């Protein structure tokens, strides 16, 4: 048996040329063949690559979808983000725990099933949803999860998941032979930039007729800003990358949308992969890169084959490879790098670490990726949607693009809308649209609040509904969750914090520890033990985390608390009580003594009945 394991590991390592930089792929492939990456496999990988074993163990322990112990053949990951929980994930959990006879986090004794949670899998518009191995299972109604498991148990053909679980395929390319997914696009409003029709090669042809510097100038003229949320001007990023010293440059597409409630890239990757690849190729030409990477989140593995196929088609058409588009000297190709379940890898320097086969720890800045990025070379990391805008700007002109939206936020924005509304899904809207209009478009049901930009954004109420979606007002990477009147603001806030605690890389003190402390105090208030001074405590702690954290995750992680303290303060205040007689209500003497009382079998001197 051990020789088999060794052989498998050896074959996988050789397939990647024993390249330490491909450790994440190696670990993924070893797991696919052996079911997990256990201690012995870690040893073998370390030997094969001639690296310390602790580096391999470190990587494997970092990613949610890499396992050091055997898992079930069927791995059910229920999405536990807020929109899913709102639509009844707890009920599905109860159903599956009963049907499988295991708890969340366990594997059945026969090794057939394991049950776990996953942070947002990108189906908040079709909640509650689950990821079953690589298969997306949306819209779990009462009894459907149980029936699915029963079917798998009866047939015993656990490898035939797709055939057994998916009856109807979704619209558009979801029904493509290489996708065959039950997901729907839920594209409720297509705009002119991302979802208009396109002709392969059009944008690229126009770009190649210009010099790279002219292409960058065109992007700068369009005033395009990054769509991931931070809004850095794309043209400037490219200019820096092009100007940086290095014998090689890289363009990386960030397709790791992990912000809970975001799923726009899922629809782009399904319906407009050509637009994305075209934008990447234009970017490669502009910055002088020969290699592009798409960092694809593990949850979207079901799209991989399809995307590879589109890349192959583009290679055949001469739109990738050597002398792209007939342009002598311009060589460019794209590789898909799979992630392995870590929200932090959406942070650009963490994403680069992950591409390099490391833990997804963010890097210290400076140096910035434009100076020293992937493998130490100048690198531009751009969002999926941004790169699609690039292709469209080349195709239709920067003037046309800049005429859409506002002066500071040109073009359109994709919104991923979920929660308490009748029409969840993806909306392409011009920047500058009022939040109230958006809420009307999606048929929000008496909205009490909207979470703009996901957990790392902010929760706003009625008073802010007339504000506009743009970089200078309500900035967002696109997630918009709607909350109706009966939702519990503090419960939502607590779930958001739980998400950040789970997804923190743990590198820096404030993010690693501070969020745990925020949640402790928030839960104390939720349990009815809060005191007025706790609000000031939350505020100060939140501000410390924001100020001292090393990367964007930590710097935004207290936002759920800080924005609800600002906009929904009464939700906190109504649960507070002043300490009576100087005693802290959170300390319950009787329950504190209960364990020792039970152990000793006698009443304590403090016992009162």
């Amino acid at each position, binding site marked *: 048996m051990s020789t088999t394991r060794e052989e498998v590991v050896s074959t996988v390592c050789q397939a990647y040329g024993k390249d330490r930089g491909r450790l994440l792929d190696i670990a993924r492939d070893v797991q696919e063949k052996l079911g997990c990456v256990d201690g012995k496999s870690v040893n073998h990988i370390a030997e094969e690559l001639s690296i310390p074993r602790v580096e391999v163990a470190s990587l494997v322990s*970092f990613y949610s979808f890499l396992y050091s112990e055997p898992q079930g053949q069927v791995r059910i990951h229920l999405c536990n983000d807020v929109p899913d929980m709102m639509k009844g994930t707890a009920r599905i959990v109860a159903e599956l725990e009963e049907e499988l006879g295991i708890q969340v986090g366990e594997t059945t004794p026969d090794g057939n099933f394991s049950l776990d949670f996953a942070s947002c899998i990108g189906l908040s518009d079709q909640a509650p949803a689950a990821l079953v191995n690589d298969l997306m299972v949306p819209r779990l109604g009462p009894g459907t999860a149980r029936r699915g498991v029963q079917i798998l148990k009866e047939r015993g053909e656990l490898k035939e998941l797709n055939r057994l679980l998916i009856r109807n395929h979704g619209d558009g390319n979801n029904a493509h032979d290489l996708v065959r997914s039950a997901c729907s696009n839920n594209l409720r409003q297509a705009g002119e930039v991302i979802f208009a029709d396109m002709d392969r090669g059009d944008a690229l042809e126009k770009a190649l007729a210009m010099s790279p510097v002219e292409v960058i100038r065109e992007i700068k003229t369009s005033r395009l800003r990054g769509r991931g949320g931070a809004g850095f001007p794309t043209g400037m990023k490219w200019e820096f990358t092009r100007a940086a010293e290095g014998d090689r440059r890289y363009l990386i597409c960030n397709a790791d949308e992990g912000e809970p409630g975001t799923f726009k890239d899922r629809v782009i990757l399904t319906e407009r992969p050509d637009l994305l690849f075209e934008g990447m190729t234009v970017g490669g030409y502009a910055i002088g890169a020969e290699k592009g990477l798409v960092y694809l989140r593990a949850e979207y593995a079901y799209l991989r084959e399809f995307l590879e196929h589109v890349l192959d088609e583009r290679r055949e058409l001469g739109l990738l490879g050597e002398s792209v588009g007939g342009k002598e000297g311009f060589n460019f190709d794209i590789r898909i790098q799979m992630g392995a379940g870590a929200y932090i890898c959406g942070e650009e320097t963490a994403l680069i670490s992950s591409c390099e086969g490391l833990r997804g720890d963010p890097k210290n800045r400076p140096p910035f990726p434009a100076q020293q990025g992937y493998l130490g070379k100048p690198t531009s990391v751009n969002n999926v949607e941004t790169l699609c805008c690039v292709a469209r700007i080349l195709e239709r002109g920067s003037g046309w693009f800049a005429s859409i939206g506002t002066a500071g936020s040109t073009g359109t924005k994709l919104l991923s809308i979920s929660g308490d509304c009748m029409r969840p899904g993806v909306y392409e809207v011009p920047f500058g649209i009022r939040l109230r209009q958006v809420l009307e478009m999606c048929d929000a049901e008496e909205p009490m609040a909207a979470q703009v930009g996901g957990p790392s954004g902010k929760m706003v109420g009625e008073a802010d509904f007339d504000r506009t979606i743009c970089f200078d007002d309500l900035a967002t990477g696109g997630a918009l969750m709607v909350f109706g009147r009966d939702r519990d603001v503090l419960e939502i806030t607590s779930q958001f914090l739980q998400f950040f605690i789970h997804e923190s890389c743990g590198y820096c003190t404030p993010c*690693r520890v501070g969020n745990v402390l925020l949640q402790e105090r928030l839960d104390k208030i939720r349990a009815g033990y809060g005191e007025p001074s706790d609000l000031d405590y939350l505020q100060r702690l939140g501000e*410390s985390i924001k100020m001292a954290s*090393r990367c964007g995750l930590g710097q935004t992680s207290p936002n759920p608390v800080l924005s609800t303290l600002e906009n929904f303060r009464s939700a906190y205040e109504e649960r507070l009580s002043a300490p009576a007689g100087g005693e802290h209500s959170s300390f319950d003497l009787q329950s504190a003594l209960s364990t020792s009382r039970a152990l000793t079998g006698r009443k304590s001197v403090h016992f009162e009945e």
Partner: protein
Amino acid sequence: MSERISLTIDGHTIEARSGQTILEAAQEAGVYIPRLCWMKGLSSFGSCRLCTVRVNGRSQSACTQPAVPGMIVENDTEELRELRRSLIDMLFVEGNHFCMFCEKSGDCELQALAYRLGITAPQYPFLFPQRELDASHPDIFVDRNRCILCGRCVRASQELDGKHVFGFVGRGPEKRLAVNAESGLGGTDAAAEDEAVAACPTGSLLAKRVGYAVPVGQRRFDHQPIGSEIERAQSDE
């Protein structure tokens, strides 16, 4: 000769060499910026965040931010002292620290920084984590209860000892110090005289059988607060 740069820290102008970080430049000028994960001779890490300063109004870690001409740095302000107390408190409640029993007491940088910043008890509730001990090595003891994940042992092992004894596993609150062998530290090539052991700022890595050798009153931080050696070096000049 490398280029000279001048910047101000808390209103005083100091000189730096091109390529130096704010922390290094300050140190040479006799200005102490509190730090735990930074150690002279090791690459910068930027994890503890104790050295957070304001640079032209923005918060930055002084150990990773290069000195740039004309920078206006705030270091010893009440805002930053409060932030540092908060961070030190986090490190205390995140682990299981019992100074009164710890053989590193008086020689511990975490404890010394708490004293310097005027902390008598943490403002946050203790989290009481379950952490593993490792006594498998004949000469070195690992007590993860006291580990603050500063990575000094990890870097010292690689950069000074030419080994790879330590690393990290897990993420978030579950992040832990790990060693380069399944069987524990005893299975690695670690040695008691490794720089990695000496690099530990707390009592997380200890050489066995030498504890409590220095009497109370003669320990490193018994008479002067941590950082005063840097400040003294300047006032002596």
